[in-house]
């Protein structure tokens, strides 16, 4: 068994720098609490060089370094940093587990163990794997060192031993020679408790080699059973259980704000950092966010929790930020925000196989982002692919999910059969009164038929019906260009002066003037068995004196005239 260990030595400092990278290079101290009596938990190398020492009071630290930047330790940031360390490890190995929290002088470190068995073939060597591990951890914003050894404990000891070399240091203990290589390491790396450390010091035991050279029984007699555990750890004798595959859970990024934010722009600025870090973690694990939740801690103890709609999984931080911004614009928080947390449910990135013989459409990831943003802009019910509805109601249509290139078998308009039925095509009004057509062409048969049957539904028209005349259908179509309609949703009310021959004058927001030509009426009725949904229209094609060609209809239910489409 081979185990790798990635170790971030100074987590409180690393977590602050991960959230505020602009502080890198400055004298920085992380305090346990606000106020001058708070204790310095961690200090940057620049601050240490100027005399700031961990465990000193903040007042003493400020006295030593006047330009000291101070941040209060944030449990939320540290939790997110620990999770980020695990995410970076999971990007390289499917089996990874966080190390149990350390105590004593190593309380501020965070470590993760990875199953490194067989990685040499993927990364050429275990050194290559350890280097890639260190780089992956640095990519998520944490300075870390990496080691590979035969057990978790030994790998952890080695990682601690190279932490002083700085971020990016790696060391590999080859199988078999571990005891020899561990011998010169300091005994402090085992983190013994204070009493045991003092006893070992009195015995003159300062390295692991010196400890292992002592007889085991005598050690237990003189120093107690605790030292045996340390000796076993130093020998690499611990029983190594298999590192499990973690569940694909939530990815959480959070921040506790020093001051409450009551305006949208600064809040979005804070959320930008959160989402950027979240996207980096998603990228490290090759995941996308399938869902996104935003939790805001409000001043006064309130909470604002909302889900941000994602039409498709995405890991793009700009898209996530736009969606969050949009959600906050639509419904601003009720009070100033004192803390924020974003949670993303990760899912595998969608892959797409390109087609050699079709034009390349939008990439699945880009399409997902675009759909998500369009839904945020327009609403989830107003984005999709248009479809013909199985409904005779005029203007009925449906919207279905858009899947781009993965759509149904393509239809070629040019391949549509020629119109040979002696009926005119391209009468959009027929579509409303007829079942959806399947060949892209629309026959005027329904219009002709609609014009011919006598009125049997008990509706009385204020004009003579054209049913007396034989229905004359148009000559065979010869490939002319189709006249389309522009729908008006909702239909525009019109004031119409109607005579015995139909409408003679129209006044409306879209068409005005004397009616020059009027064709119709064509009656469309349906859903008469439902009192609420029934409809009955007499429809005319009219040309008004202002040049507009409109589809004008008389609604028998409301007794009103309206224009539901313009020929355009």
């Amino acid at each position, binding site marked *: 068994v081979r185990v790798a260990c990635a170790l971030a030595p100074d987590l409180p400092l690393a977590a602050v720098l991960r959230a505020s990278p602009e502080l890198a290079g400055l004298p920085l101290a992380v305090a346990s609490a606000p106020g001058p009596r708070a204790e310095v938990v961690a200090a940057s190398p620049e601050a240490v060089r100027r005399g700031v020492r961990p465990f000193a009071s903040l007042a003493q630290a400020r006295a030593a370094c006047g330009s000291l930047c101070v941040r209060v330790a944030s449990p939320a940031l540290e939790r997110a940093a620990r999770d980020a360390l695990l995410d970076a490890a999971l990007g390289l190995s499917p089996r990874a587990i966080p190390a149990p929290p350390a105590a004593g002088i190593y309380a501020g470190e965070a470590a993760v163990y990875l199953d490194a068995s067989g990685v040499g073939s993927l990364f050429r060597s275990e050194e290559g794997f350890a280097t890639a591990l260190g780089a992956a951890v640095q990519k998520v914003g944490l300075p870390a060192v990496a080691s590979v050894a035969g057990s978790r404990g030994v790998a952890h000891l080695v990682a601690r031993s190279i932490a002083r070399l700085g971020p990016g240091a790696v060391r590999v203990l080859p199988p078999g020679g571990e005891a020899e290589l561990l011998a010169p390491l300091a005994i402090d790396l085992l983190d013994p408790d204070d009493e045991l450390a003092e006893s070992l010091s009195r015995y003159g035991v300062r390295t692991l080699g010196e400890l292992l050279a002592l007889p085991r029984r005598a050690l237990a007699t003189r120093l107690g059973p605790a030292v045996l555990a340390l000796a076993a750890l130093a020998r690499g004798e611990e029983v190594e259980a298999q590192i499990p595959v973690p569940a694909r859970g939530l990815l959480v990024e959070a921040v506790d704000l020093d001051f409450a934010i009551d305006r949208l722009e600064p809040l979005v600025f804070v959320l930008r950092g959160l989402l950027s870090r979240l996207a980096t973690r998603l990228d490290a694990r090759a995941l996308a966010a399938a869902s996104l939740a935003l939790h805001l801690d409000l001043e006064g103890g309130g909470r604002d929790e909302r889900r941000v709609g994602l039409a498709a999984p995405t890991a793009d931080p700009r898209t996530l930020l736009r969606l969050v911004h949009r959600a906050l614009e639509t419904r601003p928080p009720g009070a100033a925000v004192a803390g924020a947390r974003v949670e993303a449910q990760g899912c595998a990135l969608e892959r797409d196989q390109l087609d050699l013989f079709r*034009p*390349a459409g*939008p990439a699945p990831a*880009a399409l997902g*982002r*675009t759909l998500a*943003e*369009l839904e945020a*802009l*327009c609403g989830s019910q*107003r*984005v*999709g*692919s*248009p*479809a*013909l509805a199985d409904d005779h109601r005029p203007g009925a*249509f449906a919207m279905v999910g858009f899947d*781009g290139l993965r*759509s149904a078998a*393509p*239809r*070629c*308009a040019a391949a*549509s059969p020629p119109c040979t039925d002696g009926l*005119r095509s*391209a*009468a*959009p009004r027929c*579509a409303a009164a007829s079942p959806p*057509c399947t060949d*892209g*062409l*629309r026959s005027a048969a329904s219009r002709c038929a609609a014009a011919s049957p006598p009125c049997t539904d008990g509706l009385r028209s204020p004009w003579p019906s*054209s049913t007396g*005349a*034989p229905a*004359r259908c148009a*000559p065979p179509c010869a*490939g*002319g*260009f*189709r*006249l*389309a*309609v*522009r*729908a*008006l*949703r909702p239909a525009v009310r019109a004031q119409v002066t109607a005579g015995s021959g139909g409408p003679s004058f129209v006044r409306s927001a879209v*068409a005005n003037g004397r009616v020059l*030509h009027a*064709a*119709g009426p064509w009656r469309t009725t349906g859903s008469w068995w439902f009192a609420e949904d029934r409809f009955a229209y007499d429809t005319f094609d009219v*040309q008004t004196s202002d*040049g*507009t*060609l*409109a589809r004008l209809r008389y609604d028998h239910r409301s007794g009103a005239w309206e224009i539901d489409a313009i020929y*355009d």
Partner: protein
Amino acid sequence: MPPIPFAAGDRPPDRPPEPAVARLLRDLGPRLRAGGDPPEPRDCLPSGLPEIDRLLGGGFPRGRLCEIAGPPSAGRTSLALSLLARTTAAEEVCAVVDAADGFDPLSAAAAGVVLERVLWARPVPGPRLSEALRGAERLLEAQGFALVLLDPGGRERAVPRSAWARLARTAAASGSTLVVLSRERAAGPQAEVALELGALRAHFAGTPLLLEAIEIEVVLVRQRGARPERSALLRLGAA
């Protein structure tokens, strides 16, 4: 005897003087083209209407902002649906940003549009066009939509010039064709191609009276790099 060195800035006497035009071509590189060279062939989206394609020299150029302007009943929608039908029939993916909420799927299907290949975004109607403009920009940024139709619903005058410039830049970067359906030309110099449509007459005939067709005039009022002010007559409806 060794050759006498030239002073700095002199040219060897055995080389002919460099013509000014050649020097300009060398300095300015590909930005200059010697007169008389034929223009490079453009990649176009054919409209499916031979008269329009002849007028435009092949169709609507890819990666450019194009404008189709005209009053109601002038044939804008019919021309746009024909372009959409031709493009989707070529298995390309298209998008319609419909601020007017006037796209009629029945009419589009009748025109031959493959509806499965059309993404239809319907911003909530209102006085602001920002959602429609943002939506069009996102669709262009997605890179893969051959055609993005933007229908501002007659409110194109409210669009600032900077927005047109931004859309034109995004279209150029993405390779998608952005076609704007407007009542009056609004994109100005940002439009690579601008067509103005006008209705000539409508034909009603038969017993009972039926709307047979409309005749429209299409005027090419702007085409970058070509002589505009050419026109074509079109008959829309049953032939």
